[in-house]
């Protein structure tokens, strides 16, 4: 199993007292499969994604990624996993504003030590970015930025792609096109995909669907 969450709990301190965002979550994801995570706002979808990526730590339970227990792993180990095993696609794209499209595309692959110029060039072509390689993120439209973000993630050939509402900031047509691309490329690379979405229509296109409500899987 590539990713396993066992009885995971996460609580945040708020002005009104502790707020339990995830409450005893169990979830597993195999390599080469895709899973849609849906639920209302505040149901804990993004938090679950962050725990899976090792960006945050669970208060209780166990999160295991590629055989490593993230709950007990130190910061350098978790950083190494993010570099080499996980790829993230964010709703806000989160490209690096100081780098141009070409450098952004290759960035994570180079960090992971897996930069393959031919593969990156192919991704650029498939994503329709070849004419934009010298531009900076601020000079791109939302759809173009999200395509760069997907390319950046896939260029590193991660085993697990975590996508947090990757089409949330895009119009329906652009969102569909971006998701098509992402599903195709994930399938090509044999990676697993865990995608957070509000849209039942998009969720239906993935292998499995899990809904979160008040911190629990329903």
């Amino acid at each position, binding site marked *: 199993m590539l990713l396993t969450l066992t009885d995971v709990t996460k609580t*945040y301190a708020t002005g009104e007292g502790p707020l339990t*965002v995830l409450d005893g979550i169990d979830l597993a994801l195999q390599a080469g499969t895709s899973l849609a995570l849906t639920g209302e*706002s*505040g149901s*804990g*979808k*993004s*938090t679950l994604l*962050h725990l899976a*990526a090792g*960006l*945050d*730590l669970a208060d209780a339970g166990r999160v295991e990624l590629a055989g490593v227990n993230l709950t007990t792993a130190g*910061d*350098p180990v978790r*950083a*190494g*996993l*993010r*570099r*080499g095993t996980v790829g*993230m696609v*964010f*709703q*806000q794209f*989160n*490209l*690096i*504003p*100081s*780098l141009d499209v070409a*450098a952004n595309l*290759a*960035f*994570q692959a*180079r*960090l*992971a030590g897996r*930069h393959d110029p031919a593969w990156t060039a192919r991704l650029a072509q498939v994503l329709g970015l070849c004419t934009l390689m010298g531009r900076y993120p*601020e000079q791109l439209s939302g759809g173009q930025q999200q395509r760069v973000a997907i390319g950046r993630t896939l260029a590193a050939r991660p085993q697990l792609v975590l996508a*947090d509402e990757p089409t949330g900031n895009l119009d329906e047509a652009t969102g569909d096109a971006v998701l098509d691309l992402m599903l195709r490329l994930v399938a090509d690379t044999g990676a697993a995909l865990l995608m957070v979405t509000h849209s039942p229509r998009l969720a239906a296109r993935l292998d499995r669907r899990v809904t979160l409500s008040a911190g629990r899987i329903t």
Partner: protein
Amino acid sequence: MRAGLSALLSHWLRHPVQLAMLMLGLALATALWSGVQAINAEARASYDSAAAVLGQNRMERIVSQDGGPVAQDLYVALRRDGWKVSPVVEGRLPATDLRLLGIDPLTLPAGATSVPLRGGADLADFLSGGGRLYLNPETAAGLRPDGLPALRTDPGLPPGTGLTDVGVAQRLLGMEGRLSYLLVSPGAQPDRPLPQGLVRRAPDDGTDIARLTDSFHLNLTAFGFLAFAVGLFIVNSAIGLAFEQRRAMLRTLRALGLSARTLMGLVLLELLVLALAAGMTGIGLGYLVAAALLPDVAATLRGLYGAEVTGTLSLRPGWWLAGLGMAMAGTLLAAGQSLWRLWHLPLLAPAQPRAWARASARSLWRQGVAGAALLGLAAGLLAFGTGLGAGFGGLAALLIGAALCLPPVLILVTGLGGRMARGALVQWFWADTRQQVPGLSLALMALLLALAANIGVGTMVSSFRQTFVGWLDQRLASELYVTARSAQEARRLEAWLAPRTDAVLPILSAGTPLFGRPGEVYGITDHPTYRDNWPLLAALPDVWGRIAAGQGLMVNEQLYRAEALALGDAVDLPGGPLPVVGVYSDYGNPRPQVLMAPEALMARFPDTPRLRFGLRVDPDRAGALAAALVADFGLPDGAVVDQATLKALSLQVFERTFAVTAALNVLTLGIAGLAMVASLLTLSGLRLPQVAPVWAMGLTRRRLALLDFARTLLLAALTAMAALPLGLVLAWVLLAVVNVAAFGWRLPMQVFAGDLARLGGIALLAAGVAGLVPVLRLARIAPAALLRVFANER
């Protein structure tokens, strides 16, 4: 309105560190500016007070046509002829810095105010017995009373000035039978011409010393202004950040019905309240700065110009009002860009914090063009301009131009670094550094200016010190210097010393006007001591032979430059002109000076006392000889001075002279460091969206923090490298242009690599310390804070 204002002010309650930075920046800027202004005001008040000790600066005078003294007989003749004039004797008391003023209270014109003579009892005291010498308490405390009349203190007198009866002054100054000038009573005077050789002179509209010290005060003002500008960088940074952070709130306030005009008014009101509070704090700090620096400034003015300034500070309403005005104006200036953006804030535009940095990047290029134009102007002014105005104008254009050019240069250099980089992380490091430049540009410009000022002024002072020490070694060639109390004792001393020394070299000096200014004439014996050591800048062949033969004189550099003299030009003196046959350096002396053979001097100034001698003796025997002189002749302390003591004393005066410069240097560098802290703190809040994705892709917070630290050090190092040539050019301008115009002497420039390396180290250390807080904050930042960049919900 009230709700709007409270919404605006709530920002500061939630960001107290930002508020502290804003207040600190403005308070420090105001403190240094108003501190320097307080020092200048105090010094100018002292000059005016010295010039007006008798109100004589408002009175017409009768003076000798050749600038020399007026014979006392002529005064008596004028009085008998019905002229209402009063005699004044003025001069510097030998071996002291005391300016002695001798007056006759009985004939003093009614308009002249004589501070100590307020009643009949005082007048009787003034005229009694051996006379009285009235002094400021501060001056009296530092004076040895040997040979002086009884001392009386009066705080109304300016420092460094002694007031006494005209007869007493004549005796003390060796001017028996001679007067400096005659004060003319206002009102009718006989309708007859003055005796030949006398002329009437209108009152001065300004004092010589005030004119002489203008450049020094301009220098201080420039330093104060530099510190003020650096402080404003901090203010600009804090206000800029506050604007960015409140952009969404400002838009909401507009959407809720506050007009742009009202919102602008509220922001202005908020800024002025903050400026008022910070300005008042700054004025308090400024008073402390001025009080701490004033003794050193007084030492500088005494050392360089012979000007006396009181060592205590008084509070002047004009000064603190001007300080508050500067704080207000400075705040508005620093907030100008933010206010302009507020005025043009589109109601519906999305909040884009990074747009600020992007817009700044564009304007940096325009700024670079303006900077290059200013550098061109500086080159023109320094190459073709003349005088102090061109020097300071060139300096200002040079510094501002270089500061404006710095950010575009840094963008170019970091861009080049990025192109040459291999590896994703290094490439990102350079690209990210490049992106930081607009946000840090003001702080880096402040650091550049502070470092360049330190290098420039430091190089000037070190060059001065090196030259001065070498010059002292040459000038103070005699092993001992002895001063007799009377002509009779001097003759006995000479006879006693002849068999016990290698040479006894009399040092004669007389005061006389030179080209209309109070000057000095020195008589020195033709001896290898002078021939081998005296530092000459220019000379005709056989200069010492010509001097010894009475065929010429030497002038000091200040006189040579001030009067644009050439070798062979004649200098007017009592007894006829003499040609210039040589020029010597004479650092630290504010007065024009000439040097001639003792015989020539005695022929022209027959009353000159022969009291001082330089003694050449085996250095090993100098101590024993000095002890014997004191024992055999009962000479008082200070009458026998050895070379080492004199050199140490001169160097002590020198060090004190530049202590104020060093203090201002340190303060300016400190403020630049604070500007760095303010900017880095500002940016650390804005940088999360740039750092978080890299963290998400697998870099630890610790590594990111180390990269941030390296980035700060890199920018500081690049700035220090830019400051090096700028500082050296600044030093050259100070030494070759400003010094010559201000003081009349030119110093050879010497570069001290060790000092420069030390300053580079200090710059890196300052940047490191400034970057420490944001870096530690990043290293320890909670993942939740970074996650907020990605997540709109949990």
